[in-house]
């Protein structure tokens, strides 16, 4: 049994080696995010829990970028929490960050106790529809990032080229797939697992269930105004390029969940 090499001329040689070992893996290129100790140290150095708490929902906010490193155990939740507490004058300034770390711990505990929920609905949809009303497969235009909704296409391009998406963008994209396109959350969850460098079935799939409302009290939706507030120039949020998203919550709720309205 051969020991595989651990030294490469350059990063491309490493990528070629991995491609040869795992030709079945989806994707063509590596993420620009490197899994090196230097890359991790840079993110830990920059950790600013108070700024995170104030700005984490903004796409250009002071998020940590630590999720790929936490996912693969390169740094523990305990180590990040301890560092966060060391960095703040008041413990409460670190609460938002620690709460987000707790979400990850929570999803791991849920998977431990309910492994079947990784691919099965934990609860019925609260959208007025049943799971039978949702498509099994991801439509090709979503997989290709050619939905015609500019912001969504930008997110898909970001996902498939970098392997990383800000959490708020993951929520928008998941909501679009499940609620605008009425596709089963499982199909979207699989698509993200195929591309994310921090792909973790517990955090990813159970978060998709949260968006879908099969693990929450109501479906998560958004509108263009909300995206414009949080996305800045990171993605195209021009109204003329995102008509499907450009409406009030009341109008969108009636449009996306008409049967829910009849039930009410």
């Amino acid at each position: 049994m051969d020991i595989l090499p651990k030294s490469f001329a350059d990063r491309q040689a490493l990528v070629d080696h991995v491609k040869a070992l795992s030709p079945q893996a989806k994707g063509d290129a590596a993420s620009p995010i490197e899994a090196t100790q230097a890359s991790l140290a840079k993110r830990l150095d920059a950790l600013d829990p108070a700024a995170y708490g104030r700005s984490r929902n903004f796409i250009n906010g002071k998020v940590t970028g630590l999720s790929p490193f936490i996912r693969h155990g390169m740094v523990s939740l305990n180590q990040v929490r301890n560092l966060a507490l060391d960095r703040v004058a008041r413990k409460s300034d670190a609460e938002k960050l620690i709460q987000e770390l707790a979400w990850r711990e929570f999803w791991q505990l849920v998977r431990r106790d309910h492994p079947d929920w990784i691919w099965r609905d934990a609860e019925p949809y609260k959208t007025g529809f049943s799971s039978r009303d949702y498509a099994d497969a991801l439509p090709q235009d979503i997989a290709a990032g050619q939905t015609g909704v500019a912001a969504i296409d930008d997110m898909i391009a970001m996902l498939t080229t970098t392997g990383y998406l800000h959490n708020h963008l993951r929520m928008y994209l998941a909501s679009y797939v499940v609620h605008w396109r009425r596709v089963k959350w499982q199909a979207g969850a699989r698509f993200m697992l195929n591309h994310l460098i921090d792909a973790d079935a517990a955090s990813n799939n159970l978060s998709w269930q949260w968006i879908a409302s099969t693990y929450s009290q109501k479906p998560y939706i958004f509108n263009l105004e909300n995206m414009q507030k949080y996305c800045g120039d990171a993605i195209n949020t021009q109204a003329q390029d995102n008509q499907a998203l450009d409406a009030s919550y009341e109008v969108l709720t009636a449009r996306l969940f008409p049967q829910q309205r009849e039930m009410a």
Partner: protein
Amino acid sequence: MATILWVHDGALRADHPMFDAETVKSSPAYKAVFIWDNDYFNKAEMGLKQLVFIYEALLDMPVDIVQGSTVEVLRQWAGTDGTIVTAATSDITLTQMMAALNTSHRLQVVADEPFAHLDKTPDLRRFFRYWNKAKSSAMQHHGGMPILWTE
């Protein structure tokens, strides 16, 4: 009697508590191995970007990388009477592999440093029911391993 430290993709750091397990410390000749297992990667739906990330992380670790079926490789490396030490996980496929290995070998599963201590089994139906119970512990400095600064 061989001691094999099975490093999987959820524990890619050299200061994970599994490296400190008594079984490992008392076996200076232990071997650490990561198994490049395409069947496992396929079940986990991992794409090329994540696989490159994992391989790159392994370059900095004191571990050999071997391609094959995880259970078969570990059984071969551990021989008939070896011990396998690994990191705890909630991943379903890894947990099933551990159960299979436990039927043929002595298996020691080492938990990571705890994030929060809970008095009793938490209510996992909704996050905030969990958070309300975990918060007081999660907001405390727990000590444990400092981060390995390499620069």
